[in-house]
């Protein structure tokens, strides 16, 4: 009567989900290949010249001159190769990487197309990329610090704004360094407020974040129109100038891009490095991550979950405060209503895009920064594409990447959940 014999087994794993994703990226790459050929190669003649040096640089290096059409054909061919590769066995492993490289190539092909017969300063664009990425990267880093201990921080936007405001006002009275310190402290204060609300008073994390954003926006705008309008001298802070790192800053291309920047750029890079070390190589980092993944486990081992949440969220607030100061002390020294203009939310996106890793967040921020600076260059180059669509491109690309590559990226397991003890 027994229906079952011992079952034979022996099925091979067929990765449907991943396979589907590879196929989709395959088709996407093939489409891009055709697109690049038809749009960026066929109708184009002439060379694109990218200026690498400023007049008066120590080393004068010649312009990078790329023949536009041939370059586009090469890119198209590479894309076609990558695309076909996705349909061959063993594609899954390289799928994400190839798609990433492919998209990068498309951007370069686009650039040469737009610059054909013209020229622009590549160095300037890359320098601007870094500068514009700074507040986003710091916002993202603040998010990483908070979410690693499972506190969702929607309030990054508000913390940036608070940092910007404090930087301007205190900077105007105590000087740039004082302003920066104050911005960091005030950012930390708002981090502390968020921690108190969500940890001690168990306010829903999203609600607390939204409320803090509104509060900071209201407070800064109110004080700005009620007070700063009448006391202009309170809104006129000195600005941190670029510091040229000796020798390194004279290197061609890399010099101006990486080593002729202000302390916010250096600060952001250092903070990303320090945060990576802290989170992944120290005792405190291990504990922090444990709190984000499994707070009960941490608690049973004598780790104070609440204290670590307070600590990291406050740290996150300080990082955001520093990033906020960039808007005033790192730029023009003057605060303006809502001047962060959604950069905190983009930082949040960068954090997710960067998979809750400081370096990932920085990379994602660079993508946004690049898109931002690219757009300005393109406006000068006068491409036939409406400016609005160029401006949309990075956001569309983000959606594509988030949907295609990191759709189900895994946040810390306890992310967003309150830990209620006893």
């Amino acid at each position, binding site marked *: 009567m027994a229906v079952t014999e011992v079952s034979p087994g022996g099925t091979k794993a067929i990765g449907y989900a991943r396979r589907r994703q590879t196929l989709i990226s395959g088709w996407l790459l093939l489409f891009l290949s055709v697109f690049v050929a038809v749009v960026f190669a066929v109708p184009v003649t002439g060379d694109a010249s990218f200026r690498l040096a400023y007049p008066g640089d120590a080393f004068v290096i010649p312009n990078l001159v790329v023949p536009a059409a041939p370059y586009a054909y090469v890119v198209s061919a590479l894309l076609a190769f990558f695309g076909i590769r996705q349909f061959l066995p063993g594609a899954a492993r390289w799928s994400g990487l190839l798609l990433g490289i492919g998209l990068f190539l498309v951007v370069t092909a686009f650039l040469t197309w737009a610059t054909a017969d013209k020229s622009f300063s590549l*160095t*300037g664009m890359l320098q601007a990329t870094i500068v514009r990425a700074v507040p986003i990267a710091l916002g993202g880093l603040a998010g990483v610090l908070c979410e690693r201990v499972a506190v969702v921080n929607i309030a990054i936007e508000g913390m940036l704004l608070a940092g910007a405001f404090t930087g301007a006002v205190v900077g105007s009275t105590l000087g740039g360094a004082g302003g920066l310190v104050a911005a960091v402290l005030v950012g930390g204060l708002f981090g502390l407020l968020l921690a108190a609300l969500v940890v001690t008073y168990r306010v829903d994390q999203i609600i607390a974040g939204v409320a803090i954003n509104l509060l900071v926006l209201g407070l800064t705008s109110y004080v700005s129109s009620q007070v700063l309008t009448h006391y202009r001298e309170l809104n006129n802070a000195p600005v941190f100038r670029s510091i040229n790192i000796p020798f390194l800053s004279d290197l061609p291309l890399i010099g101006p891009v990486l080593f002729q920047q202000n302390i916010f750029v250096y600060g952001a890079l250092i903070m990303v490095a320090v945060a990576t070390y802290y989170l992944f190589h120290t005792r405190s980092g291990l504990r922090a991550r444990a709190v984000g993944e499994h707070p009960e486990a941490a608690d049973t081992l004598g780790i104070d979950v609440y204290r670590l949440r307070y600590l990291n969220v406050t740290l996150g607030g300080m990082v955001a405060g520093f990033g906020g100061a960039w808007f005033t002390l790192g730029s023009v020294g003057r605060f303006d*209503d809502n*001047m962060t*203009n959604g950069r905190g939310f983009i930082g949040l996106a960068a954090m997710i895009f960067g998979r809750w890793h400081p370096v990932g967040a920085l990379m994602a921020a660079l993508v946004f920064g690049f898109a931002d600076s690219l757009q300005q260059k393109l406006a000068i180059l006068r491409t036939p594409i409406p400016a609005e669509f160029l401006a949309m491109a990075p956001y569309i690309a983000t959606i594509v990447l988030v949907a295609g590559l990191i759709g189900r990226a895994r946040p810390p397991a306890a992310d967003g959940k309150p830990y209620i003890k006893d």
Partner: protein
Amino acid sequence: EFKACQITDTGGVDDKGFNQTAWKGIQDAEKELGVVGKLLESKAETDYVPNINSFISEKCDIIITVGFLLGDATKTAAEANPGTKFSIVDFAYDPVVPNILGQVYATDEAAFLAGYLAAGVSKTGIVGTFGGINIPPVTIFMDGFVHGVNYYNKQKGTSVQVLGWDVEKREGLFTNNFSSLDDGRAFAKNLNEEGADIVMPVAGPVGQGSAALASEMGTDRLKIIGVDVDQYLTDPEHKGVFLTSVLKRMDSTVVEAIRQVKEGTFQGGVIVGTLASGGVGIAPYHDLESEVSDELKGELDAIAAGIKDGSINVKGM
């Protein structure tokens, strides 16, 4: 008491630009004519109508709206409230609305001079401009500037180039806001990287960001042309970077509008500020005087005279 009430556009009253200048006009009127000034700032475009309505119920003797963007809202309100007197800065109606006095400016006349000056002073042979939004009161500066440069090229056989505005296609560089100083800085940097050593930002307070950049880089590498007011005076921290400013004397037209109501001579129509009437002009060169050769100064005087008497056409024809 006589109430003169101003509504700003979204730039706010401390824009160191035209809202502020118009407000200065009201403050001048307070001193000169003994009126009481009132102010409402608009945070968003949806505020325009309710702000106007608030002032209507406050029974203001004249409501002065500032900016092109309030054009529609002002007209609607004026038509619904024929008993209230309005004046709008930077806008005029055709046909005329009987209870609105428009205040417009032939800014291109002054910008033409600034363009000629910039072309004469530039060492790289490239100058630049960018705007806040692509609207006529902004682009009229850029038009005049480009035509001024072109006029210089024609006169001198040079080929000074203007980045940031294409007169024919009506496209160019715009920050799409009148508030972000950081944009002002970034846009000027961008133009400078492409070779421009003189930049004219036409975006209200945004220009202060450009000025900050110029004072950081030094006027050898970047000079700024201010707009609306003499920014040498209103932006003292960075005053050294202003080659000149393209003046638009809204304060004087605002006082004039208030005076008309006060004296009972108010009627709908338009006041136009021109180079000839002194409603527009260019500011002194202040600290950068030495950069401008006497020869160039002389040419500029001649051109100004030519514009006033109509022998030079600033529209590039």
